[in-house]
């Protein structure tokens, strides 16, 4: 029996003792952090190694300080949290880590036994399960946007009611207009007020502006990175492309993330020229799916050329009026609104990255993603790049049909 399995079994045996499980999870994260720190894998570039440590630490920090923490979703504007030194915990990341610890099945079953639908997204169910078992200590505040994912509002409403924790829902219109910006800006001003009240500290507007400036600098580097992504072979495993969501979303605007992108650009410049076949991913990467792990992690033949989720906003934010700027950023996200926006962004990205193939892994329950599959397939055929979509689950491994997916994935890779 391997160490992870032993660890998983100990957690599962103690599920009725939330305090102990909380300690065990903290132990797991701490061990992972030190493991990464002391046993550097030479195949991993310095920047990604830094990101790996940063991501683990950010989860640890928010779990260790629930009184200075806010639960958010991937798209929530955490610029305010960064400016006020509040630690965000985003549900997608927490659930991925729990899947990494192999306890997502238990947490999903718990959520389902409390009444959650079995067709609901497993990122949400895993998080709800952990919260139901009180493994997760309640935070001081919750903040979610309404955009892109239907599950956000009900998940946060449910958790906020259950724990009696204040929640702010930022309603993001589907269409962009001046009125829409005014509507969101007003809500962002309310969020700031609410944060000041709950955490009993002031939001320094200059500090917020500083965060936005850092975010703009970071995005400039992100664009620069993309200039090389078409020529180099760089991302060694799927996990790193997913870790990049920490940097491109929830923690963007922090000094650490800026530092990460500075290193990233330097690293990709030095990376080997592209060889083998490159695959561009739509939306998510199935980091725990065996076939994908076998074919893509540390592979010479096939490599990961990016995913559109890391580039859902690549423009500059108005530094003079950060509230308005952030409002615009949220509404103009390429995953928000009509699918044409998303298609246009994918088109820009594949023109730069020039992948040999495109894969969309349709995460069970994610309707915004799978609903557009055939439209993206059409785009791929227009630009003449082979496209494959597969169904499965990025968190709950029980929903992955490995045998079926293997045949399809292999046939697709052979086709390239």
């Amino acid at each position, binding site marked *: 029996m391997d160490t992870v399995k032993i660890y998983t079994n100990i957690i599962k045996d103690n599920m009725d003792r939330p305090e102990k499980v909380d300690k065990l999870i903290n132990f797991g994260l701490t061990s992972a952090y030190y493991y990464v720190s002391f046993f550097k894998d030479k195949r991993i570039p310095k920047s990604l190694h830094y990101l790996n440590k940063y991501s683990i630490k950010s989860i640890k920090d928010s779990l260790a300080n629930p009184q200075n923490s806010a639960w958010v979703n991937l798209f929530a504007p955490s610029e305010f949290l960064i400016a006020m030194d509040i630690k965000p915990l985003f549900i997608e990341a927490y659930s991925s880590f729990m899947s990494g610890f192999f306890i997502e099945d238990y947490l999903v079953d718990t959520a389902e036994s409390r*009444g959650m639908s079995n067709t609901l997204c497993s990122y949400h169910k895993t998080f709800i399960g952990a919260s139901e078992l009180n493994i997760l200590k309640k935070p001081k505040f919750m903040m979610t946007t309404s955009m892109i994912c*239907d599950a956000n509002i009900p998940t946060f409403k449910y958790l906020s009611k259950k724990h009696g924790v204040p929640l702010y829902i930022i309603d993001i*219109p589907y269409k962009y207009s001046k009125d829409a910006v005014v*509507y969101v800006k007003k809500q962002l001003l309310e969020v700031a007020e609410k944060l000041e009240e709950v955490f009993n500290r002031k939001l320094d507007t200059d500090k917020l502006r500083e965060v936005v400036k850092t975010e703009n600098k970071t995005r400039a580097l992100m664009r620069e990175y993309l200039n090389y992504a078409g020529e180099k072979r760089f991302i060694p495993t799927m996990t790193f492309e997913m870790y990049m969501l920490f940097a491109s979303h929830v923690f963007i605007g922090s000094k650490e993330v800026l530092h990460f992108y500075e290193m990233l650009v330097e690293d990709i410049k030095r990376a080997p020229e592209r060889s083998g076949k490159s695959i561009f991913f739509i939306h998510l990467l199935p980091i725990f799916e065996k076939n994908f792990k076998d074919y893509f992690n540390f592979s010479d033949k096939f490599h990961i050329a990016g995913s559109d989720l890391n580039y859902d906003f690549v423009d500059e934010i108005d530094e003079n009026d950060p509230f308005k700027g952030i409002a615009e950023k949220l509404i103009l996200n390429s995953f928000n609104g*009509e*699918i*044409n926006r998303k298609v246009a962004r994918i088109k820009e990205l594949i023109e730069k990255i020039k992948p040999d193939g495109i894969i969309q892994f*349709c995460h069970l329950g994610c309707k915004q993603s799978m*609903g557009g599959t055939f439209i993206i397939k059409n785009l791929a055929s227009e630009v003449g790049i082979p496209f494959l979509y597969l169904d499965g689950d990025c968190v709950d491994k029980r929903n992955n049909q490995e*045998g079926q997916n293997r045949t399809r994935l292999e046939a697709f890779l052979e086709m390239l």
Partner: protein
Amino acid sequence: MIGYICKYTPVEIIEAFGEEPVRLESGYKSHEHAEALIHSNMCSFAKGVLENIIENNIEEVILTACCDSIKRLYDVLKDKVKFIHILDLPRKKDPLAIDLFYNEIIEFMEAYQAFKNKNFAEENLLKILESKSFNKEKQSAESIAILGARLKDDVIEKIINSCTANVINFTCTAEERVFNIEAKDNLLKSYAESLLNLTPCMRMAEDRSKLINKELKGIIYNTIKFCDFYSYEYAELKSKADLPLLKIETDYNDSNSGQILTRIDAFLESTGIKKMEKQRAKKGYFVGVDSGSTSTNVVIIDENKNIISYSIIPTGPKALESAFKAFEIALNNAGLQEKDITSIVATGYGRVSIPFADRIVTEITCHGKGAFFIDNTVRTVIDIGGQDSKVIRLDDSGNVIDFVMNDKCSAGTGRFLEVMARTLGISIEEMAKVHKEVKENITITSMCTVFAESEVISLIAQNKDQRDIIHALNKAVASKAVSLVDRIGRKGKYMMTGGVAKNQGVVYAIESRLGEKLIIPFEPQIIGALGAALISLEGK
């Protein structure tokens, strides 16, 4: 005609244009056209609407950006119909949200005006709104609420017709359109505001707890597969549970299926608001016929509740013939003739098609009744039959107070075990033997019968011991059954009924999960029919 879906659609504007707004339905069993355009795992309501639009050549459609599925429906339909418009629908209703929605309505009007080449007359809108301003809801002493995702009109109608209480439909198919037309200086804006003030659906930011009123006799909670919004509210209601609550989960199109109507009927029976004639039966012999999907069972009792005879036969392709045959066998076994029988109650899937029955009662009530009669310490009945499994909670007097059923697939039922036995190339009897010694503790991860079958095939290919595979399958069935138990909470003692109770391996696996012995009646397959016979005797 212009098709719409969402109750927040400005249908009165369409009427003011002199056009006919039609709420689009999704009644298709097959999604042949839809699944060529959109992923098959999308919500089946959205797929059904897409099928409807394509099949019936609907040329004009207005949608709202209400959920991810409908947004994608818009993307897919965009170049396939002559006119399509999507309205952004704010989730809040403060003045800025109202402004935003007002602008959306204006934008739609301009687009529709240009498409139809027709002018919009505000006085027409005013007239329409005035005619809708005094719709008052019927008041009744007793009410039940239908909450959750949209429920089909015909199901709502069936509920209204089969219960004595007032039915309040809070789902998206409710037509409660009452408007504030006071502010005539800006009619459209006040109309936009009124729309946003309709009973909030789950996607709105507003708290919906005000909809739940303690006076209600019960709540029927409808959820649709792949519709994210509603299971949360159900989970919340369930944990508070001071009102009788029934959850139904459908893929929308099958919400009027026999199984769902059975659950609704049983719920109405258990809350005491089912319309039924009550009369005491005379003396003589009483029959219960349980027409199940796999077996048809008949029990005859006398007026002192003694079981005189029973029969169990497989349900053939014709349920009615099997019922006649089983009835005949039971009569012969008892040495009775049809004229000796005072009354007959039919239950089970095929209960509606048994012409010789005097009354029909759901199998949930019957199983509860039968189990409690056999052993009055039973508080939880686990019934696993050929096609479905259910868990029934009884109170101290044997009344059904809660129940859950599996979804429409056969995961974790007798059928599941039959398929697996066939895959393993053994008989169902061989499969039912207990193998307590396990070489390797295998776990079957897929609960779906089809996927689990391929998993078993690969285990066979890996040369795994057959007994270990059977053990794994028994565990899978037990896990499904215990998760059903957990949905209504654990409470002993437990009785297991239905054909699968004869499978010792499954019984053993459930017992080890529950940590408690199961009571297995002498003939687990006749408990539903026994309950029906008892109801026939008691006449209520």
